């Protein structure tokens, strides 16, 4: 039986969009955590850590996020780890994000002038203190625009987890379309909701960038 595309269906899409947000946040949290570790390892004084981090970035960036998802969902289940779809999806998106965020943040850390390291070392700061008070605050300003840009990508890429049965925005769109067979209104609505989520992020990024740039106003 074919239903019309009405307010109930729109509501259903918005509810599903919550899972898109949850997935994005989980992937961001995981990816941010791993990514920071990867970035710091990538610029560490230890050769072993640097090589390992560089290898990790290369491998993760070289694998489609869909394959990461299949590995986490189907692959791990054959090894006895039966992860719920949402967890497998968060894990794979998190790993995917860490590969990119780690690289973006490495670049941002490396873009801080060597003299900043020398000046802070000469004031007897420990390496940790140098990162915390001198290097990271300067890197953040540089890293912010590409990070938010990647976050927007990440949000849109959560659509692939519809394949393992998580009813997020894209999957919900498919379900509604199957019931109403009105692909244009349905998927335009889906697109609009993605836009509603992503657009404010771009705005926030622009504002933050302006704020961090304030000290250069002179």
């Amino acid at each position, binding site marked *: 039986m074919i239903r019309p595309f009405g307010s109930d269906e729109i509501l259903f899409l918005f509810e599903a969009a919550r899972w898109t947000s949850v997935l994005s946040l989980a992937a961001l949290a995981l990816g941010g955590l791993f990514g920071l570790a990867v970035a710091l390892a990538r610029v560490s004084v230890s050769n072993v850590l640097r090589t390992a981090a560089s290898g990790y970035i290369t491998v993760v960036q070289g694998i489609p996020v869909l394959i990461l998802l299949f590995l986490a969902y189907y692959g791990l289940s054959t090894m006895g780890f039966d992860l719920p779809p949402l967890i497998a999806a968060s894990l794979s998106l998190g790993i995917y994000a860490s590969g990119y965020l780690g690289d973006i943040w490495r670049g941002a850390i490396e873009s801080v002038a060597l003299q900043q390291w020398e000046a802070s*070392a000469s004031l007897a700061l420990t390496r940790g*203190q140098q990162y915390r008070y001198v290097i990271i605050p300067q890197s953040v300003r540089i890293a912010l625009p590409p990070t938010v840009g990647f976050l927007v990508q990440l949000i849109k890429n959560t659509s692939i987890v519809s394949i393992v049965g998580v009813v997020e925005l894209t999957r919900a769109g498919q379900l509604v379309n199957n019931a109403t067979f009105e692909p244009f209104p349905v998927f335009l609505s889906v697109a609009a909701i993605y836009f509603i989520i992503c657009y404010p992020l771009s705005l926030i990024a622009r504002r933050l960038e302006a704020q961090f740039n304030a000290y250069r106003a*002179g």
Partner: protein
Amino acid sequence: MPIVLVEDLRKSFGSLEVLKGISLSVERGQVVALLGRSGSGKSTLLRCLNGLETISSGRIEIGGHVMSYAPAALRALRKDVGIVFQSFNLFPHLSAAENVMLAPRVVKKTPKREARELAMEMLGKVGLIDKADVYPDQLSGGQQQRVAIARSLAMQPRVMLFDEVTSALDPELTGEVLNVMERLAAEGMTMLLVTHEMEFARRVATTTVFMYKGLVHETGSSKELFGRPSTSEFRQFLGVTSD
């Protein structure tokens, strides 16, 4: 007892030996000008003195510390040995006062209010109290360099190193930085400076060290050295630079 003691210091970058056996002794309160052509090794020597460059052989004692590259030992040494750079190297994300406060707060765990008072005192010394809340990019080069000096002084070092601190400044701005340094010298601070300001070296430095090809070529009281340079290389150097 000397506050800086350098014995047979050698430093190579790859196969290039830049310092070929430097020995140097500085007493408390002395102001030592390190002079020489570019490539003579004077900046490298200065950077070795606070461990920014590791030495290939020899021995350094400074501010009561024997040079060691173990991180904790190096930090202990650097608490007592300040350095000011040619390119200022202020932290651009922090205001002038925050630049000065950072190390006392983070390294010495000075409470915020006390650190702020200390910062204001140090900024007062370099004549920049009114710029406390201004960011480095809004300061002139001379002002930035004075903040850098205040930042270094806030750690209450026993020895101060100055690495061509006026070389990046317009001529009209060098004076304000040199004045601060002269006052510091008058207060009894032990200072080693690499400089191209001959007049300043002659007038303010108690001792002048002329370096040539990685060695101390000629050294003595500034008065004697500038009055009667004994080597032809130093005579030539003075002749060339006073043109």
